[in-house]
């Protein structure tokens, strides 16, 4: 990494959910500060229900933090926008659109001419390995394929930052492993600033330039940070890989 420009910065972000007209308060995030550099692959690891989705949704602009700021290129974000792309934990393809139409949706919203956006969308469909399925509807695809479309859709919109929320959480181990490889390949082919949320340390070590772990209980706090210097493509059975994985496991309560 040569250019050390900060792309995303969270400054002391806290979030408290209020329920039943404020009588019940759930503190979900507490004083989260983190920086993501340009073209860095940051992985946030935490166990279930520790506020990972909430943090990502704040960065995406769907939720406003109770305290603190989120900056993109030094400017405070306000609401969701096409400068950030998100792949959701739950498959959220538009069921009434074909794969092609799903992938080109962002470009269409921007008013790009049909021929041009077809070309771009086609490129990303190819990149995620779905050529031949352009005309298929989401319900005709498997879970892994749906998530590939989700990734292609986010990529095609050419966001500055890509946010992925446990994108492979619903997949079987085999497909998940395959998708991790694909993600690493796609990211190497087209560098982007990525924030990737997962609950799997293995997945984190495989993908990340840097890993941030969250504490295992609410409210979520940053626990520690690791820089991964392993060369790519990585091997799950590489000695250094296992060492780092072991180290992180030791230092978190996570059993994964």
């Amino acid at each position: 990494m040569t250019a050390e420009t900060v792309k995303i910065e969270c400054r002391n972000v806290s979030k408290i959910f209020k329920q039943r007209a404020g009588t019940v308060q759930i503190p979900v995030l507490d004083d989260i500060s983190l920086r993501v550099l340009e073209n860095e692959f940051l992985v946030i690891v935490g166990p279930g229900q520790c506020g990972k989705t909430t943090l990502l949704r704040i960065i995406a602009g769907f939720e406003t933090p109770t305290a603190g700021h989120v900056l993109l290129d030094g400017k405070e974000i306000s609401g969701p926008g096409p400068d950030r792309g998100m792949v959701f934990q739950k498959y959220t393809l538009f069921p009434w659109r074909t794969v092609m139409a799903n992938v080109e949706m962002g470009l269409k919203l921007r008013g790009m001419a049909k021929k041009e956006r077809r070309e771009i969308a086609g490129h990303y469909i190819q990149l995620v390995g779905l050529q031949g399925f352009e005309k298929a509807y989401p319900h005709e695809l498997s879970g892994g394929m749906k998530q590939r479309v989700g990734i292609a859709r986010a990529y095609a919109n050419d966001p500055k930052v890509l946010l992925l929320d446990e994108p492979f959480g619903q997949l079987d181990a085999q497909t998940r492993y395959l998708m991790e490889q694909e993600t690493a390949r796609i990211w190497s082919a087209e560098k982007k600033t990525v924030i990737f949320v997962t609950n799997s340390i293995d997945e984190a070590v495989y993908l990340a330039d840097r890993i941030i772990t969250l504490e295992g209980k609410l409210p979520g706090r940053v626990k520690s940070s690791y820089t991964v210097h392993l060369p790519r493509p990585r091997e799950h059975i590489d000695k250094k890989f296992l060492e780092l994985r072991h180290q992180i496991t030791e230092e978190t309560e996570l059993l994964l």
Partner: protein
Amino acid sequence: MNPDTRLKDPLSLRVTPWISFIGFFVVWQLLIDTGIVPRILLASPAEVGQLFIDKLTNPDPDGAVLLTHTMVSLLEAVLGYVLSLVIGIPLGLLMGWFVVAEGLARPPFEMIRPIPPVAWIPLAIFWFGIGLTGKVFIIWACGVVPCVINAYTGVRMTSPTLIQMARTYGASDWQIFTKICVPSALPMVFGGLQIALALAWTTLVAAELIAANEGLGYLITMGRRLLRPDMIVLGMIMVGLTGWIIGNIIDRIERRLTAGLERGGAAT
């Protein structure tokens, strides 16, 4: 909208339903009082209310007090409805699980199914006359269809994993049917009950409008014959109210019985 935002609704949003509700009756009353809508076409809410009180005790001019009309309609509806449940639900359940039952019952059922319930009325009157039997038959014929369909679909939608599991534990066909298919079909069955009820009530009113000498439908018809809009509107309101109350009762029972079957929210 989740409940916590609703509490914080601005005042204007909270009063609009009341404005609308009260406004509806005020406008209605004013339309009559000012003569914009002539009295022979519509009765005002006040007149309907007065008639309601009067009809509680006075059998004139249609021959029976309000409670009698309501009870007659209810009796007809409940008898036909219960009969359609007693026959339709077991039939649908069996059709869902046993090939023989489905094979034998399906053709006649598919023939009856597309007949709109009201189309049974002339035949029923021709066969049984305008009394109780004819009405019960009509209600039965229209209630049985949704009962069968929903019970059948409910069984068919039983999770195959549960069935497989029971098989591996050596359960017999009949055991699987009674212990797994029937309970898991319950929510669907109750959906059918609601549909059947709405249909039964509507059809009954239609039947009473065409041929009856008692009942709420009859009250509505007499209102027209005697040019008494207040009687018509009172009849309509009683029909709506009674249907609404029975619907709520069924809803209650459903919630009691299926409380344990509610599925948890999907994992995020």
